């Protein structure tokens, strides 16, 4: 087991990419700590699966290198990299029994049958498959099949990293939670690095210690769930994570201060210079509140979600969302809102100002 390092990776599915849009994966360098639980989060088509396939060796990157520990594996095929992968749709060998399915990767590597038997029973027990070992794999339900896919990865003792490509897509909602806690438990037991690809923020935030957020072929932020919530590095992260997402409001810059609605807005980091580009204020609905003065707004609508109400207000044409706790009144017309300065940031061309 070892750390996985991606060095200046770039990938395009076209033979000779010219434009920026031709690259499915734009240049990136990422390190994956040994034994970590990572989630790779982003909308469909952002390059998650491409990145995953580059790590597993199903795809070789157009540029850059992949290192497992101090071993350059860029040109090594998937079967020698000691990785395991669970796909979106369950992949089982229909004609084999569950036992044979689990034994398959070991048999292909010419391992002794007594060793295989021990290993298969051990993993079968770990995944609660002991009762079904002699059954045909094709007869199992979707979650059983996903367990087999996972098991085929786990039987190999030398496995470096287990990758999951949206593995819960076809699982019944009430079983999703069960399977997810099983994964979490296995992570602690096995200790292998796990990378979990998903577009569902709840899945990502509950599974992972570290979440890698991708957008448009780039990694926009790597951080713990708390960091992503508190300090989104990019407006995309702010918007994608949290429900509802962060308010992103167009603003002007004057003398290092953000100007919105003709007023100076207090932000976390002062803006050192008048940088060019599209400037925006980012503030989460959690940190916006009604006030006696501040930005004049009209209340548009409010939705009750239990402990909070999501209120949408409007200043001119700009809509702002805020959370109002239970028991607090929503003022009628002529209301004002203010932002919590400790959680209000300025973004230039989407990226947090003052960062770097």
């Amino acid at each position, binding site marked *: 087991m070892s750390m996985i390092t991606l060095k200046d990776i770039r990938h395009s599915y076209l033979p000779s990419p010219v434009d920026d849009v031709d690259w499915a994966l734009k240049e990136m360098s990422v390190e994956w700590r040994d034994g970590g639980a990572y989630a790779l989060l982003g909308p469909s088509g952002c390059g998650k699966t491409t990145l995953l396939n580059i790590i*597993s060796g199903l795809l070789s990157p157009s540029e850059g290198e992949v290192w497992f520990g101090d071993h350059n594996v860029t040109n090594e*095929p998937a*079967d020698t990299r000691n990785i395991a*992968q669970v*796909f979106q749709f369950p992949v089982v060998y229909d004609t084999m029994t569950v036992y044979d399915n689990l034994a398959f990767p070991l048999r*292909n*590597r010419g391992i002794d049958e007594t060793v295989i038997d021990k290993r298969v029973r051990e993993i079968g027990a770990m995944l609660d498959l002991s009762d079904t070992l002699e059954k045909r794999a094709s007869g199992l339900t979707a979650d059983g099949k996903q367990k087999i896919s996972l098991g*085929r*990865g786990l039987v190999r003792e030398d496995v470096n990293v287990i990758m999951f490509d949206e593995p819960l897509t076809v699982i019944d909602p009430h079983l999703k939670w069960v399977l997810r806690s099983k994964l979490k438990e296995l992570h602690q037991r096995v200790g292998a690095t796990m990378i979990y690809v998903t577009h569902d923020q709840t899945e990502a935030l509950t599974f992972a210690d570290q979440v890698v957020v991708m957008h448009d072929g780039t990694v926009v932020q790597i951080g713990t769930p708390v960091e992503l919530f508190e300090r989104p590095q990019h407006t995309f992260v702010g918007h994608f994570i949290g429900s509802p997402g962060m308010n992103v409001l167009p603003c002007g810059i004057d003398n290092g201060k953000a100007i919105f609605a003709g007023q100076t807005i207090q932000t976390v980091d002062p803006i050192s210079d008048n940088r060019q580009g599209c400037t925006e204020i980012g503030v989460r609905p959690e940190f916006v509140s009604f006030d006696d003065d501040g930005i004049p707004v009209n209340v548009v609508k409010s939705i009750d979600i239990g402990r909070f109400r999501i209120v949408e207000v409007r200043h001119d044409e700009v809509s702002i969302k805020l959370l109002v706790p239970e028991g607090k009144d929503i003022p009628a017309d002529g209301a004002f809102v203010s932002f919590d300065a400790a959680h209000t940031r300025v973004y230039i061309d989407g990226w947090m100002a003052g960062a770097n």
Partner: protein
Amino acid sequence: MAMKSTNQKAWFFVLPVVVLVAFNALIPLMTVVNYSVQETFGNNVFFFEGVKWFEDVLHSERFHASLLRQLSFTGIILVIEIPLGVAIALTMPQKGFWVSVCLVLMALPLLIPWNVVGAMWNIFALPDIGLLGRMINGIGIDYNFTQDPTAAWFTTILMDVWHWTSLVVLLAYAGLRSIPEAYYQAAKIDGAGSWAVFRHIQLPKMKRVLTIAILLRFMDSFMIYTEPFVLTGGGPGNATTFLSIDLVKIALGQFDLGPAAAMSLIYFLIVLLLCWVFYTLMMKDEDQ
């Protein structure tokens, strides 16, 4: 799979089909049954004969010989065409321009009228003017399919392979294309070699289309008439007289309607029975 709802009005939907097929199937079938139990001396005078014709046909050596030839022919072409078709489908390009080229060229023999196939192979294999005939004789083998039974069988089988292997290729290819990429990726990670991929992924996933291919090839080769009739006329002697050729010889050549009808029914029942056996065998473990 979703449950089907019960609706007796659905019969109205199938009515046109039932009427059209029944008109074509039941009336002629009744005619055949009618002939099969009667004796005629012409002039529309018939005598009831019971199961005499059936006994005659079942005990006739001529029928046994044609049936044996038919079974051998069907067996041989299945053993050649199914593996060959699968092998070609496996080696076909998977995307791009060449896929269309391959598919169009391969499908071509399927759409040539059957007697043209026979005539084409006749011209192609004749020892004096045919390319194939010339080539085989050129390498020192004495080859004349109009006189030598072995050569006649070889030519008939080669013609059928030429004519129908593409159907197996197209079906197998369609089956292969419908296998999700993830299966191949998983197999790669599991360290499976190409034989293991074929044995455990491709073959099981092709099962349905291969069942269809085997059934279609079985049925059509068992009913083959036009191509060998045009190519060899059933000869030399009776060497390539398959069931249909023999049947037409008896019915239209000798006008022995009774025996011909009895033979027709026995023939039809054999096809049905063998199809049923094939189908049950191939679907057996599907239900488990």
